[in-house]
């Protein structure tokens, strides 16, 4: 494979473009509301109308506004305005064709000029909803694999690391560790072999950012991983993806096969001496396997439990070799940074948090779905403007970020710009990007209890503070919630939270008390009201 071959694929792909593009969302959200039947019927309707030369129907990835699915977007050469139809039923396919021909329809149409869409800045999701995730040509036509070519043919590994460092990209898995620094550490570690792992074990309640990237644009991940592998000197990669994501797994398998066939993965990629293979490892569904040491144990075929760090994976990871572990969204940022340069990326976002962040908006909010916004966008803008606020005249009370490791941010702090530091300062965290909006009807003790129940169920049981502590905390929260607790129980709750946080072995236990801390900080009166 050479650059001109890539460009030839791009040319053919563009030449074949028909005047009308009908894109039907086939990501998990829309599929679950029947979008496969919608797409099949659209195909059939186009055939029946004899418009196959003019209209091309394709299954694409997530178009963001998941609550209104199935979504179908129509782009016409003759009409610059794209149309986004929502809640499309299989029997609506003829109406969609009619709408293309300019006839009146009663199909529900979404306003693409509303803030939910216009405020977004897609980098990670730039191809999501545009390309067919099951066709590599579709990705290549959007400059796909050009970053990898550039890296392999024009850059030294150290230059790649430097570019990522200069871009200011930080880990999107939640903790926000500088990506360039992590890469540099693994690059410098000595080992006969090195590994690259993509952590696709997303499991926070209410979070579906990574799933969307995997389902909508899998090649972006493969390209990012290959660039990382070249930068650190690895020749084997693993994608650890949860079994609950069958569509993502299927599309990843397809993508890997296609990339191998074109010589974009495997031996001597782009006729360079660089070899890189990627294999998928399917997790059996344990939340703790998102923790890097537990994840590696699981890949090694052992029981997925964490072990103390140091040694860090960068030094001694998979089977004792230096290993780079990054999250899906982190890898998804790599190819654009290479293509457009570190300065371009560093120009987006805030001083310490660069680029954009994908959030999964859920809960009591009008527009639930995916958004990608520049770092530094305020919670107010996200919840009220983009999310459209609470439906039926309700008032937003708090937003939960960071999943079970995060916390609840009260409405009074919605002016806060979203970046790693300010969320931590509020007692929450960025996490992987779940955002659950709560309204006045939500009881915050219940919220804390829900997340503690999650941690209790997902604790691996290895260390005592997490195994026993989460059970004790859950029981105390239940006691409070049931109105059977006394002041002493609240004190014990706080004491145990402190102990579990500081003595647990891994991140799951260390952060399990966070939802309790943050609800106690901002909504203490709700706890007190329940105490006898």
């Amino acid at each position, binding site marked *: 494979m050479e650059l001109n071959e890539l460009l030839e694929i791009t040319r053919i792909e563009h030449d074949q473009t028909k005047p009308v593009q009908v894109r039907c969302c086939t990501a998990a959200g829309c599929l679950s509301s029947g979008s496969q039947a919608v797409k099949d019927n659209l195909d059939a309707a186009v055939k029946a109308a004899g418009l196959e030369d003019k209209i091309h129907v394709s299954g694409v990835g997530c178009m963001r506004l998941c609550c209104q699915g199935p979504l179908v977007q129509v782009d016409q050469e003759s009409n610059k305005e794209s149309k986004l139809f929502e809640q499309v039923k299989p029997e609506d396919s003829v109406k969609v064709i009619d709408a293309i021909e300019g006839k009146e329809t009663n199909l529900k149409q979404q306003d693409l000029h509303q803030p939910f869409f216009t405020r977004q800045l897609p980098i990670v999701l730039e191809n999501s909803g545009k390309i067919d995730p099951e066709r590599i040509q579709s990705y290549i036509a959007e400059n796909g694999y050009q970053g990898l070519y550039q890296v392999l043919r024009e850059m030294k590994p150290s230059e790649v690391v430097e570019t990522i460092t200069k871009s200011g990209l930080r880990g999107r898995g939640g903790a926000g560790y500088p990506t360039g620094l992590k890469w540099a550490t693994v690059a410098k570690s000595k080992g006969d072999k090195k590994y690259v792992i993509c952590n696709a074990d997303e499991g926070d309640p209410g979070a579906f950012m990574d799933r969307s990237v995997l389902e909508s644009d899998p090649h972006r991940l493969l390209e990012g991983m290959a660039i990382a592998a070249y930068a650190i000197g690895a020749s084997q990669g693993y994608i650890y993806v949860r079994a609950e994501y069958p569509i993502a797994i299927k599309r990843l398998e397809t993508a890997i096969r296609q990339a191998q066939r074109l010589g974009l993965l495997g031996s001597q990629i782009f006729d360079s001496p660089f070899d890189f293979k990627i294999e998928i490892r399917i997790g059996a569904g344990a939340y703790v396997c998102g923790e890097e040491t537990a994840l590696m144990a699981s890949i090694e075929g052992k029981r997925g439990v964490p072990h103390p760090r140091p040694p860090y994976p960068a030094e001694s990871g998979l089977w004792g070799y230096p290993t780079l572990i990054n999250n899906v969204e982190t890898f998804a940022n790599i190819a654009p940074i290479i293509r457009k340069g570190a300065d371009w990326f560093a120009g987006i976002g805030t001083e310490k948090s660069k680029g954009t962040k994908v959030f999964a908006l859920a809960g009591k909010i009008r527009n639930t779905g995916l958004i990608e916004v520049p770092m530094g966008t305020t919670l107010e803008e996200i919840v009220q403007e983009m999310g459209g606020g609470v439906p039926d005249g309700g008032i937003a009370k708090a937003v939960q970020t960071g999943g079970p490791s995060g916390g609840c941010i009260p409405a009074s702090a919605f002016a806060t710009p979203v970046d790693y530091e300010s969320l931590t300062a509020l007692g929450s965290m960025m996490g992987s990007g779940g955002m659950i909006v709560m309204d006045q009807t939500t009881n915050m003790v219940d919220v804390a209890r829900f997340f503690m129940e999650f941690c209790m169920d*997902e604790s691996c*049981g290895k260390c005592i503070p997490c195994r026993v502590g989460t059970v004790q905390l859950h029981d105390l929260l239940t006691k409070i919630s049931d109105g059977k607790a006394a002041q002493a129980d609240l004190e014990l709750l706080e004491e145990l939270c402190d102990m579990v946080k500081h003595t647990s072995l891994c991140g799951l236990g260390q952060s399990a008390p966070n939802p309790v801390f943050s609800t106690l900080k901002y909504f203490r009166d709700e706890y007190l009201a329940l105490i006898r």
Partner: protein
Amino acid sequence: MTVKTLTINGQMISAREDETLLEAAQEAGVHIPTLCHLEGVGDVGACRLCLVEIAGINKLLPACVTKVAEGMEVNTNSDRLQKYRRTIIEMLFAEGNHICSVCVANGNCELQDLAIEMGMDHVSLEYQNPKRSVDTSHDRFAIDHNRCILCTRCVRVCDEIEGAHTWDMAGRGSKSHVITDLSQPWGTSQTCTSCGKCVNACPTGALFNKGASVGEMVHDRGKINFLFNARTKKEWNF
């Protein structure tokens, strides 16, 4: 081999560079409580009793797996650490059914010793009263899961010293438990060599010799250490 100097509780000590804080402390006569640690088998850092404070590091680190470093300032006994340790022991007492008076290991139990050391006079947490079983299917030994604290010493000693790997863990969180083979009754295990190392390794009365009555259970730790030293250091003296 380079030697490192560090302070533990203000006392200057020297240690070999490959030593853990726990080993260095023990050599210097500083006692750090542990439960999952067992000399001769690998450490897992799971019981969190040996957590220590190190100047300049925000997190508490387990002494059993933390290597010594030059100039390290370690505190093993702050009020905060003592409080956490006591809570850990209380949590164990609340989790299982540890009624010393009817336990075969009464008087020879590390959990009991630690409770006494921590000055624990009652359990201030809710008892969880889990439904746990007893397996007496083996000819010579038995396991009472109610007394198991999930330290995994038996798992490690069976795997690393005996090489049988009869024991392993199953279940998650509060449902974690040790199993023999693929969760078969111990007596039907095809891999168990009946060597009894697990029984000797157990810190409580969970694993015991059948027929031993209350207070009779003596753990012979020396055997495990002897095998470890014989294999790794070629020292054959008991």
